[in-house]
């Protein structure tokens, strides 16, 4: 690693660089020959193979030259690598290639390597190597964002409140807004368990499902209103959280993760198979939409004796009213979760959560009842999940087990993890990345989960505590002093 900045000593170790790149290329060949080189396709005559060895070759070459490029950058040749990589990218862009995939690989790969080289040149030209200069760039950035939260938060809330009245707001964008806010709420809810208490819950969607089905079944079978069911659904979800949590919260972290995963699956299997109660795979349909706080309905022609929302406020009837109302509903619900989290962090309960995350044995020695504290985190997060579930049910008008698969849990977890465990703003940013972007790029839908998986691995490698993970103390002895500086010091 001492060769990081040796511009003046361009002594190249070709054999080792080539050996390294060759080995990486060999590994790439081993990986791609069976899976990329041969594709199974269904033909009328049975399963057959398509062969695409040009892609295998492209992948292996890319890995070879990429690795070589990195090796050369490490040996102090970023400029040469930059030129070559840019050249390759331009070549890929201009010269016609047999398939589109090849072109993408060449251009994309060239650009990535060029970026890496450019970064090295930029960093190398500064006097102090960044490696040993205290907190990294991202650490400082995360701290800045966290501090900016003081004004960024209210600005964000104001924007969210004003959004339906902005010119960009139409049915589609408000719908996306509702979707984003639902995931923000779920992310904030799960953040309590994962980010604060440090418990890896892989079955959060189970509580979402309990909330959704609670409302759906109560409303369809007994005709209860949304406003009566919302707290009830939250309570039922919290209760199921306690029921699950009580036996399993004693388990070590990784066992706990697997058991919660199992619990999520059990709930889904029950939902699919218990026809009489849950409607099986078809789910529950005809779930009533929420009224305006029980005062008015969002219909054009209300039933005898009722009043409709547009009549109540003397407006023209518009189906958008209901959507805007739903938008504000989920906004309020999400903000409740946020307010709760911000507040509880400064209470003994929240501090005990964070202490548990840091060291549970020390907690016991200080008289903290681990089980109760974890149970509280679990139940509260489950309750918020239940609220979100009820909202989901009333917005969709139907629920089915398909909405509550493990993938859903994984998405919510990805939001929490990518954003930075424990960071409220991080959750919002990650939701926009994870949910918002694919909404706008529908054609990339099938690559979405691929990118998720890769993103989770990459973020863990780069910043194991999450992208915007940064912790400010919840109480300061010297509020004005150099606290901020000291807090960053530990990273």
């Amino acid at each position, binding site marked *: 690693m001492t060769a990081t900045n040796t511009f003046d000593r361009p002594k190249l170790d070709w054999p080792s660089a080539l050996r390294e790149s060759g080995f990486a290329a060999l590994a790439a060949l081993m990986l791609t020959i069976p899976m990329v080189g041969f594709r199974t396709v269904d033909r009328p005559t049975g399963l057959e193979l398509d062969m695409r060895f040009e892609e295998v070759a492209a992948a292996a070459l890319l890995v070879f030259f990429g690795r070589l490029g990195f090796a050369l950058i490490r040996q102090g040749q970023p400029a040469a690598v930059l030129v070559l990589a840019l050249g390759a990218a331009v070549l890929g862009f201009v010269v016609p290639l047999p398939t589109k995939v090849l072109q993408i690989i060449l251009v994309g790969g060239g650009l990535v390597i060029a970026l890496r080289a450019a970064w090295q040149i930029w960093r190398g030209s500064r006097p102090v190597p960044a490696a040993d200069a205290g907190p990294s760039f991202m650490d400082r950035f995360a701290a800045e964002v966290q501090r900016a939260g003081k004004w960024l938060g209210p600005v964000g809330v104001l924007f969210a409140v004003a959004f339906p009245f902005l010119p960009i707001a139409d049915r589609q964008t408000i719908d996306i807004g509702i979707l984003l806010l639902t995931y923000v709420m779920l992310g904030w809810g799960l953040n309590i368990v994962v980010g604060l208490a440090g418990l890896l819950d892989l079955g959060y969607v189970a509580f979402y499902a309990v909330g959704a089905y609670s409302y759906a079944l109560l409303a369809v079978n007994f005709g209860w209103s949304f406003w009566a069911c919302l707290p009830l659904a939250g309570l039922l979800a919290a209760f199921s959280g306690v029921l699950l949590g009580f036996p399993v919260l004693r388990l070590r972290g990784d066992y706990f993760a697997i058991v919660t995963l199992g619990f999520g699956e059990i709930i889904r299997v029950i939902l699919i198979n218990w026809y009489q109660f849950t409607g099986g795979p078809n789910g529950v349909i005809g779930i009533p939409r929420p009224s305006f706080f029980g005062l008015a309905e969002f219909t054009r022609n209300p039933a005898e004796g009722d009043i409709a929302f547009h009549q109540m406020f003397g407006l023209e009837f518009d189906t958008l009213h209901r959507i805007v109302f739903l938008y504000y509903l989920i906004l309020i619900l999400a903000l409740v979760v946020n307010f709760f989290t911000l*507040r509880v962090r400064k209470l003994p309960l929240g501090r005990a959560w964070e202490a548990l995350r840091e060291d549970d044995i020390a907690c016991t020695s200080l008289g903290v009842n681990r089980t109760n504290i974890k149970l509280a985190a679990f139940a509260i997060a489950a309750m918020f999940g239940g609220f979100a579930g009820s909202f989901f049910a009333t917005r969709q008008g139907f629920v089915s087990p398909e909405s509550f698969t493990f993938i859903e849990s994984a998405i919510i977890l990805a939001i929490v993890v990518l954003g930075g465990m424990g960071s409220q703003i991080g959750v919002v940013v990650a939701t926009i990345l994870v949910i918002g972007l694919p909404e706008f790029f529908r054609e990339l839908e099938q690559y979405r989960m691929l990118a998720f998986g890769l993103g989770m691995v990459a973020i863990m490698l780069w910043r194991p505590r999450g992208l915007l993970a940064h912790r400010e*103390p919840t*109480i300061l002895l*010297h509020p004005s002093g150099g606290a901020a500086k000291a807090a960053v*010091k530990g990273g």
Partner: protein
Amino acid sequence: MSQHTSPHLLNVERLTMRFGGLVAVNDVSFAARDREITAVIGPNGAGKTTLFNCITGFYSPTVGRLTLRHPNTGKEFLLERMPGYRISQAASVARTFQNIRLFSGMSVLENLIVAQHNKLMRASGFSIAGLLGLPGFRRAEREALDLARYWLDRVGLTERADWQAGALPYGDQRRLEIARAMCTEPVLLCLDEPAAGLNPRESGDLASLLTFIRDEHKIGLLLIEHDMSVVMTISDHVVVLDYGRKIADGAPLAVRNDPAVIRAYLGEDEDEDLPAEVAADIEASKAGETAP
């Protein structure tokens, strides 16, 4: 135990702890008294930390009874029957760890506030009053802050109160852990090798901190320590373990000259194999000197 006149604070009776075939602590009995520093010493693997873990509820002993008597109220607790967290919460026994266990991602001050968890939890009405920000909770929080400030001052960490605990130098971390234990307002403080890794000056500071706690806060201390200079200067009473058994129990001076103890530390008839510095140490402590 009969030689002690004042009532005991902690009474360990016939404590035995087995792990499978290994007997880590074998039929150990002793008492620790209020306002005294009781040191438990012994060679490595003598069962000191196991003994500690039994007292503080991390292990439940195979056989034996651990009675803690609160000096003011006379209330008695059978520690071996209590779950780990109750030992701090109800019986008011606090401890530190051999490999420091701080909440390293949290600030120094937060570490001390978490130590007052139970008190604050009650005051916050299990978070409900806290969420509403009721005055009762605010007052409790101010008091907690005062206690934390007092101990920060005692261990000299006021300047660094808002630092991340994990970023403190090693010696500060040791002292912070003691301060954190004291913030639970214990009647018995158990310290597992508090001087390990400290330089002589820091050991000296530690010794005066511990005597301060004993004299000013009037509580009992139970101490596992290898640093004989610390043990011999500040202990009122020394218990020696070897291979899980108690081999000596008494005043520091008496223990130091006990042939069984010398044998345990030096081995029988192997004096010539002893490294020079260890021999010098023994000589020094025999002469009643203390290390600088």
